[in-house]
């Protein structure tokens, strides 16, 4: 009896420690069972393949019984077989064929709490880290026969599976075409995060995000009903929604769930917050160093008085305080949760009183630094709040050189830049784009 040539059947995997290879013999005839123990469910192997093996009388009978098991496929030896093994299939090697039986462990991933975009009254669970669960979540929330799910893989090494979902009756076919084209151009080796996919799909050097990444199934389903394309990446609890325009990033899901008269003011608040966090530090520089005559006299004297102890030009102050607040924000994101509270306490002490009492910054600057930080937090989508955090620095530099004229120039450039972007053919910043309100 000749042994099976594992080298030819599954090249390159022979030396894996978790590869299990067992010969099964029926009356002088033998087959070989191969699987990766780390990926496969042993209980399931027992109840399906071993059960079939025990019941069969000869090799042909065994093969017939295998073909009745759900998730059965015949594969070619070589790379195709290796791919199947790596996805949690068990292979049964016959002399003339290879049968693959899906026996991956059931995912232990459960829907997580929605932490990225909290809302008060509305769905509280987010996606899970498993793509099948996520597709299931969307299917349950959007039980339409028009919902199409397509699978593909991304990343030349990581081979991360990616689900593309859309409502066939509402989707814009141009978006799908462009998505296909851009997906085929991605040549990254390892793809692990939704934001990474979003970046790879759009231009790498954009300042503003043109794909919306969210962990809320309800937002995803709303976008689906608006004819957008949803990407789900295996291993992340986020969905990518395409195309996305500027205004989407300043919408909270609560806007849809509440009375418009209650939510419009809050929406306005968010836009004002975005403006403040972008322009306030630059305005401070311009007002203090260029055009103090702008304010009425009392206010101008008040500001100048609070700066009396500060020995340097206003933009040093601004950069110092902004550096500290940004560093504090960054530290509280990166630190382990247990140390995080220490950072805020220490930082709060410095930012609050000490810097002002030491005469390093004016007391008004402290108010400005904190309002910049707080206003930044009202932006609901994280990527946009990153973008706005970055966008305020060019404005400060323009204000340093040109004063208020520089700020107006900077804002004009920002508007122009945002208007010049296209998210999968859709204008990024356009008023009255007339999006369907029926889904609200």
């Amino acid at each position: 009896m000749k042994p099976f040539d594992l080298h030819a059947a599954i090249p390159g995997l022979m030396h894996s420690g978790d590869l299990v290879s067992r010969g099964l013999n029926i009356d002088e005839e033998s087959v070989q069972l191969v699987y990766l123990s780390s990926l496969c469910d042993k209980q399931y192997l027992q109840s399906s393949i071993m059960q079939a093996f025990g019941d069969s009388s000869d090799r042909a009978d065994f093969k017939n019984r295998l073909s009745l098991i759900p998730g059965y496929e015949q594969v070619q030896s070589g790379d195709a077989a290796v791919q199947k093994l790596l996805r949690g299939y068990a292979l049964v090697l016959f002399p003339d064929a290879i049968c693959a039986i899906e026996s991956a462990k059931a995912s232990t991933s459960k829907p997580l709490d929605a932490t990225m975009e909290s809302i008060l009254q509305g769905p509280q669970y987010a996606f899970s880290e498993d793509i099948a669960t996520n597709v299931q979540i969307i299917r349950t929330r959007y039980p339409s026969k028009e919902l199409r799910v397509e699978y593909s893989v991304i990343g030349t090494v990581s081979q991360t599976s990616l689900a593309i979902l859309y409502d066939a009756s509402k989707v814009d076919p141009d978006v799908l075409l462009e998505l296909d084209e851009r997906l085929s151009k991605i040549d990254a080796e390892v793809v692990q995060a939704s934001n990474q996919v979003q970046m790879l799909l759009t231009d790498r050097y954009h300042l503003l995000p043109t794909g919306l990444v969210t962990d809320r199934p309800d937002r995803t389903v709303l976008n689906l009903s608006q004819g957008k394309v949803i990407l789900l990446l295996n291993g992340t609890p986020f969905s990518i929604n395409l195309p996305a325009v500027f205004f989407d990033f300043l919408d909270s899901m609560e806007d849809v769930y509440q009375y418009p008269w209650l939510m419009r003011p809050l929406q306005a608040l968010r836009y004002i917050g975005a403006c403040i966090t972008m322009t306030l530090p630059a305005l401070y520089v311009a007002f203090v160093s260029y055009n103090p005559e702008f304010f009425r006299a009392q206010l101008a004297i008040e500001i100048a008085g609070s700066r009396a102890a500060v020995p340097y030009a206003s933009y040093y102050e601004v950069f110092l305080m902004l550096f500290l607040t940004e560093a504090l924000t960054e530290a509280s994101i990166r630190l382990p949760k247990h140390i995080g509270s220490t950072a805020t306490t220490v930082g709060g002490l410095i930012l609050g009183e000490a810097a002002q009492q030491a005469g390093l910054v004016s007391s008004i600057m402290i108010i400005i630094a904190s309002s910049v930080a707080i206003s930044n937090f009202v932006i609901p989508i994280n990527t946009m709040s990153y973008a706005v955090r970055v966008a305020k620095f060019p404005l400060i530099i323009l204000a340093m050189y040109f004063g208020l004229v520089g700020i107006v120039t900077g804002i004009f450039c920002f508007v122009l830049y945002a208007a010049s972007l296209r998210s999968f053919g859709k204008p990024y910043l356009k008023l009255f784009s007339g999006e369907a309100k029926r889904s609200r």
Partner: protein
Amino acid sequence: MSRYFFYFMSISMLIHTILIVPRDHMNARYDGAILSFLIGPAIGGVLVYAYTRSLSKFKGKGLPEIAAERLPKALSLPLVLGAGLMSFIAGGMAWIHCAFIISKYLNPDMSPYALLILFVIVTCAGAVQTSKTVLFSTEIIYIVCVPLLVVLLIHGLFSKSMNYDSVKVMLDYTWVMPSWSSLSAATNTFAGYMALSVFNRTFPADKQIKHLWLIPAVGLILELFSFFIPIGFHGTDGVDDYIYTWVSTVDAFRMKYLLIERVVSIYLLILLVVTYVFTMITWHVGAELVTGAFRIRPPKKASLRTQLPRLAVCVLIGIGTVIAGARFDETTLFKASSFWMGIRMPLDVLIVFAVVLLSRWRLKA
């Protein structure tokens, strides 16, 4: 899409009435300026009507394509090139005016040329964008800025310092035949329709632009405001003492309860951003027309490489603008812009006439 037409028309009217035109009207206030407010909108209205209606017969085409299609090259090249250069000069003029005003009132320590260089660079960046991008950003800035400007106008109209006796005195000079310069200044207020020679490409063909009567009406009101409010504030002879009549007038406005007491600061910033939009539009139109005259058509997707010819043209004109700004002082600048408006009006009429003729002619075999 036809709302965009009103945006760039009214932006152009605003810029002309607050930046360029008032000086001419103030100089001619006893010599028929008021009558020119009635004749100017009439001529302007007819030109706007003729131009929009004849361009709407060409579906999704701009002036370069139309001229290339229906005229021999010896005629189409100077027509399109001339229209493009006129658009460029209008924008450059506005920048030089604006740089002088800003350096006088807002950044007194800064040389106007430094400002002019900043303005020109940003405008070049704006002008090389696609037509749609230009229209989208125009809309946003329009919606944000123009209501503020209207509030300021109304504030000035009901201000206590506004002396209506001077206005009544001026009305005695209504029936004086206008001079060429004040007539051309009043007509030039409506020159924004020239932008349609490029933006016609982006407008859907099946829809006519409606409510065209709004344009002469609004233009008339703006011109009357920009003429009578300064006279009401400064007096019939006092207006002569100021170079930039409008800015000095707004400087006299005072908002009692605003953090910012002097309204002129807000006004200047709005003026600046509106000028950005105006020059972006005119230079975009200029760049498209000049490159279009040499048969370079706008690409489907703009990238740095496809926009390179436009950028080159804009940069050339930008350098020209900065040099011109360094050469001019205020006296020569006002003389130059008044002279420019005087020759621009007949040229505009010529272009409109040509396009009307082209739209009537059948396509040559």
